[in-house]
């Protein structure tokens, strides 16, 4: 896609892509946080189990992309 001789050009592009990614993820997090009025304390176990599942899922996705 991008010719290999323009490697000096790739660093600013990479930084730009990283900043864009961070901005998008940050906006998503801000939207999520403001959409929920409050995180109730008695629901913390639920959030923790959700985090556990997401962590396992991330490991699985990484496994698939590493094996292939």
């Amino acid at each position, binding site marked *: *896609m991008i010719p290999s001789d323009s490697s000096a050009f790739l660093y600013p592009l990479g930084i730009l892509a990283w900043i864009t990614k961070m901005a998008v993820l940050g906006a998503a997090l801000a939207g999520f946080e403001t959409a929920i009025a409050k995180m109730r304390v008695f629901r913390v176990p*639920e959030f923790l*189990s*959700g985090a556990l*599942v*997401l962590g*396992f*899922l991330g490991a*699985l*996705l990484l*496994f*698939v*992309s590493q*094996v*292939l």
Partner: protein
Amino acid sequence: MPTLAFDLAHLLAGSMVVSSFVLLYQDRITGVLNVFAVQAVILALAVAFQAWFQDAPHLYVTALIALLVKGIVIPLALHRIVRELGIHREIEKVVGVGLTMLAGLALTALAVLVVLPVTAGAGRIGREDLAFALAVILLGLLMMITRRNAVTQVVGFVSLENGFVLAATGARGMPLVVEISTAFSILIAFIVFGIFLFRIRERFDTVDVHALERFRGD
């Protein structure tokens, strides 16, 4: 070596698995329907990406069908059914969410471990698409088993069918006529489901399928 195409396919197929998990977790009925619509949109994106990657224009039609039928028509119709049944504010009592999620994780791992060795000769993108498609199918089945409400069981069934479409587009060479007839039969099945939902409600005053157990002939 990772490529952009593989990463995109991985992202889209992985998002479908994640949305299946959200479906398993979500207990508000309108929430379930919205997540289902999101999953259908992701499916349409994944199919459109495969169309671009495989240079197969007929898959764009498949993506369009997925977007229109499963992303718009079925969620809207289900919203209407739920409102007419008067259960749109209801919170479904899902028994043992934690256990269900663990079972879902086990099923996903099983799908990956089963598909990857079997498809050793195929291309990378096809392999990971098949693995995640099997995971989505198994999670849809799990949702049909664990839910008590007939509406969310229907959602489980149609999300299972999302997995079939993802598998069929990942494996090259599915003719368009198959996809159109599948979409059509899904619509027919959906109409039948709708009629049955109203019949069940009329009979038992609820769409909780456990009410049916009293009427077994034993």
